């Protein structure tokens, strides 16, 4: 009579065991997945509700802050007072789209410990400061604004930094977007609109997009030639209308289809100042693939820059791939073929010339300060690479100054400041050429000089389209930035 009761009891206990297993599975084993599921608004409520630290620019403009939520006095709402201007640098902290930019890589400092975790409670008990910390960026707000305005509605990027330290002074990528839209109530459709936009506004063109560097790469080719002892600025080169590439029907010609100035021979310096492809093609073949690739890598190619913001490695194919491809070497030497670079990389190349051949690790956060405003941590400049020797850098500086005083980069010049630079008009089979300008200033040995190095990229020629060149499209943008930086209005020109 009791047997069936026992059987039922065992049956029910077996099922209870399964229930216990299921609870364990849902709460302990896959629990973290449920907790982090983007559709689980608990996470959202917890993140948005928490106070985050303030982010200010080098000159004290607030670019990210947490404000008390009007609907819920206990929680906070992230706000970006400058709207789109810092969308790719400061980034955003959101529920649906995660964190980006400074908001992501300095999240530890920006978040409050006031979250009832054991460590937070312990810290509070021993009198520790659990309030979120604030960050002071290296970016100059006015410079950032001018760089953004100069790009206008063209797609492109500007990276400006201090050559001696690596401190980023401005970093803009266009098109940009308003991060406030990703925080608010209509975040999902706003984010979807950004993702489906063919102009890819969320792509940070300054650090995460690769473009053929075109003639700006000649800085590296020239450096390789100086290092290898193949040529010096005065070395004369033959001056054909077009360069016939060995073992190939392809040719390299100059931008205007003309020889590189008058005469049967021209010095390398003239070829650099006038950006002659014919002669740099020859130079590249003389330098050889090993030296060219090696120098490019010492400038930072084929390595991810150790930057705060996710940055891709600029690319030059390995030397072995050019073993039976001399034309490829010639084309790579003028920054075409398979050479690709980010605007950050090319800004670092200009900074290397400005800084006697050394590239500093670029950084965006200058200081961490606590809730009382007391600085707790300051950035220390660190050398990343030795790109070239001081003597090569000096020779390159002369050539680059010539570009701005009498060459293709004249439209980057500002009165009273010695500017060095190099233009680039990079052909892209997919569309109009990309317009480049890289440069720095002031040239010379004043204390603290040079103060700024930059790269300007206007994707697919911008408003000028097929007619765009680095000298006509990118150099004027650089000029506006230099003018702002050196306290000169561009109108005074």
């Amino acid at each position, binding site marked *: 009579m009791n047997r069936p009761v026992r059987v*039922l009891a065992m049956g029910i206990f077996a*099922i209870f065991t399964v*229930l216990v297993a299921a*609870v364990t599975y849902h709460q302990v084993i*896959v*629990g973290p997945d449920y907790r982090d*599921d983007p559709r*689980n608004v608990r996470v959202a409520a917890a993140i948005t509700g928490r106070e985050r630290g303030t982010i200010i620019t080098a000159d004290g403009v607030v670019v990210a802050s947490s404000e008390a939520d009007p609907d819920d006095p206990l929680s906070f709402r992230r706000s970006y007072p400058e709207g789109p201007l810092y969308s790719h640098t400061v980034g955003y902290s959101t529920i649906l789209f995660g964190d980006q930019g400074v908001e992501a890589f300095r999240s530890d400092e920006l978040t409050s410990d006031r979250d009832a975790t054991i460590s937070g409670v312990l810290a509070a008990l021993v009198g520790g400061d659990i309030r979120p910390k604030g960050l002071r960026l290296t970016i100059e707000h006015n410079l950032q604004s001018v760089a953004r305005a100069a790009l206008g509605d063209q797609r492109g990027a500007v990276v400006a930094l201090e050559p001696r330290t690596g401190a980023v002074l401005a970093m803009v990528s266009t098109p940009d977007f308003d991060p406030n839209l990703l925080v608010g109530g209509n975040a999902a459709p706003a984010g979807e609109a950004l993702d489906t936009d063919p102009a890819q506004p969320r792509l940070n063109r300054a650090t995460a997009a690769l473009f053929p560097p075109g003639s700006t790469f000649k800085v590296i080719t020239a450096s390789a030639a100086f290092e290898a002892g193949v040529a010096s600025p005065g070395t004369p080169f033959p001056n054909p209308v077009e360069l016939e590439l060995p073992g190939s029907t392809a040719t390299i010609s100059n931008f205007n289809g003309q020889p590189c100035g008058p005469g049967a021979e021209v010095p390398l310096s003239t070829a650099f100042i006038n950006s002659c492809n014919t002669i740099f093609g020859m130079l590249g073949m003389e330098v050889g693939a090993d030296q060219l690739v090696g120098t490019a890598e010492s400038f930072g190619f084929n390595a991810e820059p150790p930057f705060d913001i996710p940055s891709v490695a600029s690319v030059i194919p390995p030397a072995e791939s050019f073993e039976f491809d001399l034309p490829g070497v010639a084309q790579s030497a003028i920054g075409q073929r398979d050479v690709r670079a980010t605007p950050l990389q090319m800004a670092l190349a200009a900074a290397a010339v400005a800084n006697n051949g050394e590239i500093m690790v670029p950084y965006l956060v200058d200081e961490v300060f606590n809730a009382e405003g007391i600085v707790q941590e300051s950035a220390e400049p660190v050398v990343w690479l030795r790109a070239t020797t001081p003597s090569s850098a000096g020779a390159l500086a002369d050539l680059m100054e010539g570009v701005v005083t009498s060459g293709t980069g004249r439209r980057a010049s500002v009165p009273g400041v010695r500017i060095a630079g190099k233009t680039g008009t990079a052909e892209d089979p997919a569309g109009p050429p990309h317009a480049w300008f890289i440069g720095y200033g002031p040239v010379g040995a004043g204390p603290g000089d040079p103060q700024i190095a930059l790269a300007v990229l206007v994707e697919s020629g911008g408003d000028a389209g097929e007619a765009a060149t680095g000298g006509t499209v990118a150099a004027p943008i650089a000029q506006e930035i230099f003018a702002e930086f050196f306290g000169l209005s561009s109108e005074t020109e």
Partner: protein
Amino acid sequence: MTRNAEAALLAAAAIVASMGVSLVNLASGTGLDAQVALTFLVFAVSFGSIHMALRRWAPEGNPYLFPIAAFLTAMGFTEIYRLDPELASIQRWSLLLAGAATTAVLLFLRDEGVIMLRRYRYIFLATAVLLLLLPLLPESWPLHGAEVNGSRLWVRLELPVGMRTLSFQPGEIAKVLLTIFLASYLADRHVAMAQTGRKLGPIRLPEPRQLGPLLIAAGASFAVLVYQRDLGASLLLFALFVTMVYVATGRAAYLFAGAAIVGAGGYFAYRAFDHVQRRVFAWLHPFEDFADSGYQIVQGLFAMGSGSLTGSGLGLGRPDLIPAASTDFIFASVAEEMGFAGSIAVLAAYGLLVAAGFGIAIRSRDVFRKFLAAGLTIVIGVQAILILGGVLRLLPVTGITLPFMSYGGSSLLANMVLVALLVRASHGERT
């Protein structure tokens, strides 16, 4: 002596409830208020009166069943208070009513014990069927049925005073009455059912005469419940019928036949009804239709996952995001705010309740008492399994209350009376 342990444990449960309320208050920033004292008072009065009744009329009854029930009620009540203090205040009245009703039942059974129920089985059967039919009363009557969430299993009484309505779920009471009927009926017939019968192949069926009234009772209850689209209660009653016949006859064939009927019935329901298909889809693929049919299940899973080991803390989670958080999904709410620790405590409490119930059944010499104890235990166990299985995604969600924990007066009252019958049955269980 054991009654002293009961008193201490009941006081502990009252403290659990009032501490829970004060934690919720602290989390919401309202601080300690009258709610804490009121909660302690209501628990103390309800369970105190039951305890005094047991001391007097069933001193040898099992002293652990009511403390377990009180603990589960306290856990559920705390979470209900956290979700909606107004519901909690109604639930407090329900607890007072349930305490009074349970005390009254113990008073009623004071002399003869549960044995006296055996005599009135057809009254219980008729009352149960009547109760199950009540929700079908037309809306225009003062006492009428009401449809909630697509299931017509509620009864509302419009009181002439003011515009107040009194709602209750008659199915909850009916399950207790039907268990008494079944225990009584099977106690009379089990010998005949087990021994006589016709062979149908390898299966020996009882005489139709023996099984007839049972089948009619079962069929009528299901028909009503299926008509009211209350899948959970149908399954519960079906499981009760099948397992009790199994207990009475000892023939496992009934279990297999029952499982086969559930399987076949489920299959046909799946083929025939859209809403069953939707529910099964939501069960199997809740994430694919997150916004609609899978929403409740996924929110329950999110709640449990977010609770993790120790929970978010009372008042600090978001169980309010789960649809039906205070009724069907009360377990997920508790799991979120009290964590894995809380859910295991709840599961262990149900396990202890079921173990004690089956223990009473096994020790009872009297057949009616044995069947009654087994049946009542099965009701609690199966009901918990049905809704917990739904919340934990082992079964489709059927929509039935979690005994003692879910918000709802009828459910609380019926389950308290159920436990009272179990305790009374254990008083002098060896006679």
